[in-house]
């Protein structure tokens, strides 16, 4: 599998097909024999911004970093063990409720969306 072509930037879906995010970057590790392998998928504008680079990338990553909750400032990390299958999307074997929620989503939901009546009703 080519990481650049088959993994990076793919949509990640949870067990129920709900979107979790894109593979914004991957974390590589080296096993006992010195062979590198994909340890985790990284999600979030921090990882994406660092990968894009330049002024825009730094700004993207910087804003995301400021929003991230204090104890876990890095991007969201999904261990590769949780990946069930890679098709046109990356399908996880768990529900997204078990994964950390993106900070921007929680912030906007708590500070904006949930304050508007009807935020609970699907269209």
């Amino acid at each position, binding site marked *: 599998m080519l990481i650049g072509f088959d993994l*990076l930037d793919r*949509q*990640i879906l949870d067990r129920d097909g709900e979107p979790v995010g894109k593979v914004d970057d991957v974390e590589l590790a080296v096993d006992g024999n010195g062979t590198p392998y994909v340890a985790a998928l990284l999600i979030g504008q921090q990882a994406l911004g660092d990968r894009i680079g330049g002024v825009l990338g730094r700004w993207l990553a910087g804003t995301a970093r400021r929003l991230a909750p204090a104890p876990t400032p890095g991007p969201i990390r999904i261990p590769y063990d949780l990946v069930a299958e890679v098709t*046109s999307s990356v399908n996880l074997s768990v529900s997204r409720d078990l994964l950390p929620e993106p900070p921007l989503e*929680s912030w*906007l939901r708590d500070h904006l969306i949930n304050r508007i009546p*009807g935020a*609970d009703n*699907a*269209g």
Partner: protein
Amino acid sequence: MKRVLAIALGVLTAIGGFVDIGDIVANAESGARFGLSHAWVPLVGVIGICAYAEMSGRVSAVSGRPVFDLVRERLGPRVALANLAGSLLVTVLTLGAEIGGVGLALQLATSVGYLLWVPVVGVVLWVVLWRAKFSLLENLFGLTGLALVVFVIAFLHLHSDTGQLWRQATHPGPPVGEDWGTYWFFAVALFASAMTPYEVFFFSSGGVEERWSSKDLLTSRVNVFVGFPLGGLLAFALMATAATVFHPLQMSVDSLSQVALPAAVAFGKLGLAAAILGFFAATFGAAMETGLSSAYTVAQYFGWAWGKFRRPNGAARFHTVLMVSILVGVAVLMTTIDPIQLTEYTLVFSAVALPLTYLPILVVANDSGYLGRRVNGRLANGFGLLYLVIVLAAAIAAIPLMIVTRMGGG
């Protein structure tokens, strides 16, 4: 039987939903100034949008994912981000133009200035997108947009000089008093109005919202190949009636009130009411589509949860982008820029952004990783490549033509 009804409803919606403020302005202006000598452009544009909408509908139905969800994988994050920025700018400007169009239609109905309507329209638009059921809305505004059929009937009723119109249509080129620069400028604007990028964003994401699967390929194709050409016919009727009523007087058209006039000439108050209702439904429907499209493109680039079928608090980022887009659209109009002028600028920028939309679709539609055996056949690729060349030519020519002709002013 139920299935046939569903398909018929989809087609009617596609017809009524095809026309937006860009089509209204571009067709009426060109008909008044150039008669039917641009008649070939909407035809070329409609075939193009059909070819590409079919591809993006097929991608949605087979892979269950909208085209622009897949763009980043193929173009990489940087190019896709640039693409997103360009498409988003054009779509939000178009949203502003559509809201302005709704305001103008309401002004025709009430004589209250459009600028007073704009904030109201913005709020109503947001509430509707926040609360109401998606398919219901789409059908409601699509069907009401069919009122524009009044221009087709008016054209038949107006005793136009068919010989003269036929001569114009078969001899493309500027009439006396116009030059080739303005002729091509309007040709590019008309082409961009038929192939407006948001139409495919919306079409493919809408397919996913309605949970299309391979079984729905037929529905998608009937919608595209029957609905879009008939919708294009409504737009063309605006050109034909303007060519009948205004062109012989050697005048140009620069307000929505003038565009509605041929319907009143033919059928009096009833015709006028149908025209205004049609303008309202067409622009409001397009405002919903462009608003949603802005949010779709951003959410799909970043991989966020998106869509009207989710609870807003399950897609907070999506709904925030939607809200901000509407605010920006309203703010643009609040600078008191004339909505018709805003539409003209939007069409030029749309023309420039066309390749950003259509190249990725062609790439994804040829990817067997997503589409399996449903990848583009020779015919689809033939049309796809041909239109890619046309789209590139229009994109390159748009800005120089705009400068040389001073927005078609001559």
